[in-house]
């Protein structure tokens, strides 16, 4: 092939072919068709092949693919997936966990937000769906999806964490699993919707009302008792997540968002708010999401998630590749407000140093912390400890576990530790 033909082929694009092929079949064919004319044009011009394509990667020498109506992640990122766990024969019941250790920043892609369903994801026609507000109100009202879209909206970045997140830390031996598998019932999003107080004010809450029973339109009709105080404060009927309509897995067309409160109360597919004077003792606030203590009594209505942090880099499955510089990085959050500080220990809690917090540090939102580390190759135990703006400090695992009976895993916010061995292997350790 002559130089000019090679250039033509380069312009048209070499398609990567399996095996050791240099040119795509289409490029070869087109090159052959054009070669006669190209050869004529280059008569008398002998030159070396100094086209810069010889030094360029394939994707600079061929036009990329065309547009797509809705983008998807790179095929090279195919391992970035939720981890699904559900009981045999119960495809709609269980969880999928966010792969936290494979993500950066503080916003979870909507398609990787953790899921907890009690009987599958309903396929709700938004034109058939209404939010009902009734009970101890002056004017019982229904709000369609279209009507809510006309209301004044707010946008807030908030985390949602399942009450059962990190429950595996109640086990006697540290589970050897990735941070996402251990802690991935946690996600952060930008939520947009209507302040619930706006709707409750229109309905006119009657004197004596103290609770609101929230109910979803799923096949479990999931229901929870919510303090009226929270509903009148920062609760939201969320319609959008990260700029797009909420995904079906997250409650399409609308969900309740209770910043900082345990995930289960953020009722998805919200269809009804019953304003009342007492909690209802729903199955999911008695059988589940209660905390049994030694002696037989159980805590009920543990709503806000405690101050918590975890190190994602490095973590299990991400072994260090020899001594040198690394960045220790992770997430911190609190259901009570902003993160005030995150301390990191490299020596199992003997000494602590402050990590840098990435701005903005928002209330009830995931906060990214970072600390550079020059690892000399010695065995090390990495820990992180969060303190929120109310002064709540993440407890040690031992102190946390001592409050409850063995196996109680709700609201775990104890300090976590990664053991780094001399060869760089990262293991989950209790320290």
């Amino acid at each position, binding site marked *: 092939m002559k130089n000019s033909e090679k250039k033509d082929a380069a312009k048209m694009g070499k398609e990567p072919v399996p095996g050791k092929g240099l040119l795509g079949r289409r490029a070869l064919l087109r090159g052959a068709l054009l070669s006669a004319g190209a050869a004529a044009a280059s008569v008398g011009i002998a030159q070396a092949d100094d086209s810069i394509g010889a030094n360029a990667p394939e994707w600079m020498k061929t036009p990329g693919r065309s547009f797509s109506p809705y983008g998807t992640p790179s095929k090279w990122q195919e391992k970035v997936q939720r981890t699904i766990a559900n009981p045999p024969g119960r495809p709609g019941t269980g969880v999928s966990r966010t792969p936290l250790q494979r993500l950066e920043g503080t916003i979870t892609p909507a398609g990787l937000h953790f899921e907890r369903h009690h009987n599958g994801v309903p396929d709700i026609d938004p034109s058939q769906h209404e939010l*009902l507000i009734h009970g101890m109100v002056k004017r019982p009202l229904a709000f369609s999806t279209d009507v809510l879209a006309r209301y004044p909206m707010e946008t807030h970045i908030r985390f949602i964490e399942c009450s059962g997140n990190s429950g595996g830390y109640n086990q006697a031996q540290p589970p050897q699993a990735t941070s996402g598998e251990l802690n991935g019932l946690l996600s952060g999003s930008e939520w947009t919707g209507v302040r619930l107080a706006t709707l409750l004010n229109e309905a006119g809450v009657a004197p004596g009302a103290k609770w609101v029973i929230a109910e979803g339109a799923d096949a479990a*009709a999931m229901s929870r008792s919510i303090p009226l105080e929270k509903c009148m404060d920062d609760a939201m009927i969320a319609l959008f997540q990260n700029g797009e309509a909420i995904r079906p897995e997250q409650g399409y067309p609308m969900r309740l968002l209770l910043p900082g409160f345990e995930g289960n109360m953020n009722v998805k597919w919200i269809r009804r708010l019953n304003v009342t004077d007492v909690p209802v003792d729903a199955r999911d606030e008695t059988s589940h999401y209660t905390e049994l203590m030694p002696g037989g*009594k159980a805590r009920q209505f543990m709503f806000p998630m405690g101050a918590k942090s975890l190190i994602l880099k490095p973590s299990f499955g991400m072994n260090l590749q020899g001594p040198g510089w690394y960045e220790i990085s992770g997430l911190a959050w609190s259901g009570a407000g902003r993160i005030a500080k995150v301390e990191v220990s490299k020596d199992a809690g003997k000494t602590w140093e402050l990590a840098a917090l990435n701005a903005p540090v928002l209330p009830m939102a995931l906060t990214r912390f970072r600390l550079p580390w020059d690892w000399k190759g010695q065995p090390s135990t990495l820990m992180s400890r969060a303190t929120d703006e109310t002064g709540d400090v993440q407890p040690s695992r031992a102190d946390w576990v001592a409050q409850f009976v063995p196996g109680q895993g709700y609201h775990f916010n104890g300090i976590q530790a990664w053991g780094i061995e001399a060869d760089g292997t990262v293991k989950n350790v209790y320290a």
Partner: protein
Amino acid sequence: MSMLKIGVLCSAVALCLFPAVCGAQGPNLGRALTPEEIRKADITVWPDGRGLPPGSGSVSAGAAVYARNCEVCHGAKGAGKPQDQLTGGVGTLASAKPVKTSASYWPAATTLFDYIRRAMPIASPQSLTNDEVYAVTAYLLSIDGIVPPDAVLDAKSLPRVKMPNKDGFVSWWPKPLR
């Protein structure tokens, strides 16, 4: 704008000096609900019996409902496997090996009725009649002797059933974070 309208607007503004507390002023676009619409949508049952429908069910009728709809997942007599254990474990909560079941742990019998009626059986939720829900509730409670074998439950008798762990819960709201 009339003086009256301005006056209304001013008072609305005055009432809502702290929008973070009371919410933004809404455009009042909600549709008024009729009592009949509320009756059809409201499926919540309270521990004091509010929300319980007419109807009744006996232990013996409940055994048949259970065999037909529940046993495949919850085992004979609610013993569990493959899904949750519903019976047994009464008196174990303070022991070294607490067994949490509907019988041993749930504080209110009405929660059984409310949950079964809204969410069970899992393959066809909200398909049981009110009589069937009363009956299967009675059957489950009879297995641990919480109600007698000849019990018939209805809107009056169900809220009176005293669950073994009625006083086992400590409200953590409102309380500061630990």
